[in-house]
């Protein structure tokens, strides 16, 4: 079900009826209105937040107490220092999955048909959904750090650096989740979105420096892990929260973010336009 012709650009003809706003800045305004819609839905179904609340807690506890002893030469505390930014990186990638699943469901239910029949920018519904996800990533960061602090994680830097870690994590998440948006547009069912994204995110988050130093991997695998965007995000966050050099990892992370946006935003928008 694809339409081959390209849609014409949106009209910018101003409207002047009483009680109406002009089209100026309307895409952002529409996206915010649609983000509010997503947030209302999240608020009504708090169980949909498990992936950013319980999941990081369970991962931190499991990895620390099950693998911690074996991995970091017996010191669970030392492993926790290493692990926490890793779990953050992994759960950031996983938290984006829900977005694609929800968008796919919305399209299936016909809610997006209504949006598509309105004189709004075609990107507004997608951008709105992504904006609403900011709240989920903030919760995720707070849960990760909170759990870590309770079980003995020690911030080796300063509050400003932790804020920077929060900023880069959320920013990365907002870029990474466009993969999920794209998959949400092209997959036939929401179940398929979930399946495809897990197949992508699980290897991506394990073949990285999130849980073990890449130096312990066979060299070919280490090479893969070293270019992995998750590795660079985790490296950046480690530097900002535990201490150590940040610049190189940060540049790599920013580079990856740009690539993710440049590749997956157009793909997602195109798939959205074509989905009938």
């Amino acid at each position, binding site marked *: 079900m694809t339409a081959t012709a390209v849609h*014409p650009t949106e*009209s910018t003809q101003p409207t002047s009826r009483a009680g*109406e706003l002009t089209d100026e800045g*309307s895409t952002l305004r529409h996206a915010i209105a649609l983000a509010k*819609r997503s947030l209302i839905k999240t608020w009504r179904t708090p169980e949909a937040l498990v992936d950013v609340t319980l999941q990081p807690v369970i991962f931190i506890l499991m990895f620390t107490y099950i693998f911690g002893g074996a991995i970091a030469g017996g010191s669970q505390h030392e492993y926790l220092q290493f692990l926490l930014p890793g779990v953050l990186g992994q759960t950031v990638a996983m938290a984006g999955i829900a977005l694609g699943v929800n968008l796919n469901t919305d399209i299936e239910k016909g809610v997006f*048909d209504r949006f598509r*029949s309105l004189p709004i920018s075609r990107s507004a519904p997608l951008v709105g959904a992504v904006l609403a996800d900011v709240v989920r990533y903030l919760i995720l960061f707070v849960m990760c750090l909170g759990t870590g602090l309770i079980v003995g994680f020690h911030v080796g830097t300063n509050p400003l650096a932790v804020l920077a870690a929060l900023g880069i994590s959320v920013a990365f998440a907002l870029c990474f989740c466009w993969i999920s948006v794209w998959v949400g547009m092209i997959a036939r069912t929401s179940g398929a979105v979930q399946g495809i994204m897990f197949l992508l995110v699980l290897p991506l988050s394990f073949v990285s420096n999130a849980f073990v130093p890449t130096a312990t991997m066979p060299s070919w695998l280490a090479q893969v892990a070293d270019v992995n965007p998750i590795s660079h995000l985790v490296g950046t966050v480690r530097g900002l929260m535990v201490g150590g050099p940040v610049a190189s990892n940060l540049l790599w992370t920013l580079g990856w973010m740009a690539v993710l946006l440049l590749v997956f935003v157009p793909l997602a928008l195109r798939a959205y336009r074509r989905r009938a």
Partner: protein
Amino acid sequence: MTYAFRAEGLTKRFGTTQALDSIELAAEHGTVLGVLGPNGAGKTTAVRILATLLQADSGRAQVNGYDVTRDAAKVRRSIGLTGQYASVDEDLTGTQNLVLIGQLLNLRSAAARARAAELLEWFDLTDAAGRMAKTYSGGMRRRLDLAASLVGRPAVVFLDEPTTGLDPAKREDMWGVVRQLVDDGSTVLLTTQYLDEADALADEISVIDHGRVIAHDTPDGLKRVIGGQRIRVRPSDLGRLDEVRAILGQIAGASPEESARHQLTVPVDDESALAATVDRLTESGISVTELSFHLPSLDEVFMSLTGRPTETTKEAA
């Protein structure tokens, strides 16, 4: 002549299915066009193209004077769309659903709220305004969906099978809304599977099948072709079917056809035929399990127009 919407030679193919095969649909301002056809005839595909949700493979379509491809944004300012399946957001309340649409139509917050309240009142949903749409009954959901498509006071309203699945009382309510819309100056495209619905609401009816128009006329004109009211009888004693056949034949002056097993249907000229039928059946002491007086069903319309029944098993397009 200026049309509120007009589709000329639209074609659309999905894989091997020819959903639309050079379809022509048009309505003048302030009128209702009924598009009558079975599932899979192409009704929804045609509506989606007119509503800019889908691009045709070839052909042209205009809505409110704007080309659906070149001026899609202007078309979207002119239309309201109510899908075959209610497309309100179930996790939002009635008010939130309508306010969101208002905001997306660039209404200021206060104006969006006022319009939402006005529509909820009109559609008798004020009491349910603060409840999530998922708690609504089927009829309430349809009304909210229709309300959502009217927030922007559209000049052209597309109603894709708005009453499918509704009970008769709710259908009548929906019909009232459609009439009100037209009184207010809107033009309506209504797709339906029921001739009685098209007959009750439409100024003109296009009967479509396999993506093409097979008949286009006023309701009266169409009924002249396919016959008006029909009487259908199913005797409880199946052995007396032939007696019933004879009685109906005499009253109608035409030989009844067996529209289903042990069920006879015959077109009649006026309502007195019903009383006559009841009298004759009573006189003869024939009891019935079914006796009805109705406009032709979609199957009967298609039988009259094409000489074959509809293929309702095909996937809806």
